[in-house]
């Protein structure tokens, strides 16, 4: 009796692909030499006379295209890899059913209760502090910070989060920025429970957006809208102001720009690396033993994702606070970003792929196709000269 794990029906209700536009020049600047990673055997051998066969033989280009259709590294980054089903024979299945009963019937209500208590405590402390201590900014900020850390701990408890923190805890100093790899919005909660970071996030709709505009505002968060190109300069300016400010909470940025499935890292956006601040990398790796913590935003809403976490046994993860890095003399922001990405990927055991995460929402720029065309054209002309 073999149980095959059922695939979730693919719904695109939360898809953000409402407009696939050709990417603006910003994406070009963010991307280092992608041609180095793409296969280049579509260039015919140099220094041999050009024959009809060479022009007619498009098999290398076709092979690349078919290879991309069959398997490509970009889609692999966003593929959910749920844990292997283990309920596949006659005595494991009843055990698994018992587990389902315990998870949904006992653990889940317990967790909802804990979370409710947490919210009640939080709101009953936060609202008075926020309203009454309007004049005493320093004290208010300190209390609000502690309260945000508290509610995040309640959240983590509500999924029975087993989080192991390695390395020195972050401290609040000016001219420093924290960057981490991104798997789900819970990354933020996991990190926030230890230190009250100010984070830069995409503005979400629904109850998440409400939380963003009220509570997270008090820790100093910055919002942006992915689809607005003009937003970039405003956001860059806000980032710089925050980093240079003295009393602000340490800033946390997820330079991948989108959630990736915790097996790969996509290219880091250079915005965090050109602020002239020290970059402190944080690596987060989730253990898939009980549940896959990757939030596949195309497949499920955040609420569904949270519910899935709350009805599983535990969320296990490791957080490593790594050595702060400074830009080396002569290093560009992009090279710096790639270096830090290498450090984080090495620590968390992730593979690096040369794609921009925003390709989830837009098409690659024509620059790449043009560079392939250019190399082919040059070799044709070169070989034409040969005798």
């Amino acid at each position, binding site marked *: 009796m073999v149980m*095959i794990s*059922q*695939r979730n*029906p*693919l719904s*695109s209700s939360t*898809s953000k*692909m409402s407009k*696939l536009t050709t990417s603006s020049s910003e994406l070009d600047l963010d991307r280092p030499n992608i041609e180095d990673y*793409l296969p280049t055997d579509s260039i015919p051998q140099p220094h041999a006379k*050009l*024959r*009809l*066969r*060479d*022009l*007619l*033989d*498009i*098999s*290398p*280009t*076709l*092979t*690349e*295209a*078919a*290879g*991309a*259709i*069959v*398997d*490509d*590294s*970009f*889609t692999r980054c966003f*593929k959910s890899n749920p844990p292997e089903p283990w309920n596949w024979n006659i005595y494991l299945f009843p055990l698994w059913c018992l587990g389902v009963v315990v998870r949904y019937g006992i653990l889940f209500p317990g967790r909802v209760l804990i979370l409710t208590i947490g919210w009640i405590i939080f709101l009953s402390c936060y609202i008075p502090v926020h309203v009454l201590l309007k004049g005493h900014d320093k004290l208010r900020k300190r209390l609000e910070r502690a309260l945000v850390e508290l509610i995040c701990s309640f959240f983590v408890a509500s999924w029975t989060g087993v989080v192991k923190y390695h390395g020195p805890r972050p401290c609040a100093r000016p001219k420093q920025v924290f960057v981490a790899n991104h798997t789900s919005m819970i990354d933020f909660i996991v990190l926030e429970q230890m230190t009250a970071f100010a984070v830069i996030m995409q503005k979400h709709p629904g109850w998440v957006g409400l939380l963003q505009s009220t509570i997270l505002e008090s820790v100093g968060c910055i919002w942006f809208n992915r689809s607005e190109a003009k937003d970039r300069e405003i956001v860059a300016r806000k980032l710089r102001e925050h980093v240079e400010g003295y009393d602000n909470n340490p800033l946390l940025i997820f330079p991948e720009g989108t959630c990736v499935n915790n097996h790969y890292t996509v290219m880091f956006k250079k915005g965090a690396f050109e602020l002239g601040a020290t970059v402190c990398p944080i690596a987060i790796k989730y253990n898939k033993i009980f549940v896959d913590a990757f939030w596949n935003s*195309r497949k499920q809403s955040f609420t569904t994702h949270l519910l899935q976490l709350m009805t599983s046994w535990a969320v296990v993860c490791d957080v490593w606070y790594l050595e702060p890095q400074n830009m080396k003399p002569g290093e560009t922001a992009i090279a710096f970003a790639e270096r830090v990405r290498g450090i984080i990927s090495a620590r968390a055991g992730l593979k690096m792929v040369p*794609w921009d995460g925003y*390709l*989830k929402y837009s*098409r*690659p720029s024509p620059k*790449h*196709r*043009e560079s*392939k*065309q*250019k190399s*082919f*054209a*040059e070799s*044709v*002309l070169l070989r*034409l000269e040969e005798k």
Partner: protein
Amino acid sequence: MGNTSSILTQYDIEEVQEHCNNTFSQQEIVSLYQRFCQLDRNSGGFISADEFLSVPEFAVNPLAQRLFRMIDGLNFKEFVAFLSAFSSRATLQHKVEYIFKVYDSDGNGKVAFSDLLDVLRDLTGQFISEQQREPVLTQVLEEAGYKKDSILVLSDFMKILGSNGLKMEVEVPVD
């Protein structure tokens, strides 16, 4: 097999295998099916333009548009047949026929100078000017014994491409 139920039965697999002349093993067909479902995000039973072009590696390929015209709206069986030319078990004849089909966009079995020029344009883009492209192609054609206004058919392609064998293989990842 028009709908995209997530589970393939043994009958389905055998039907697809027969349709592609046994160029793929049963395991490869299962992998291809998983891939098809992964690309077909809205479960329409076929992969649309947007879904293909959302694979960046495919979208940056110079021949993407041309291939896309051939692959648009295919259901899974036809999708596998389309990819069968890239299997290691495909014959040389099959591969050459495939290349011929890419050139022969109107499907009339004849490839004219304009078809050759179109593909060359796709491959070289703006890096060879229109005025340069024609003489290059004409020169190379004449050296091979054809004239500018010759119409090439499949047997010509076999003769030109078939002599040294063709390296056109894609490995289907099997879990």
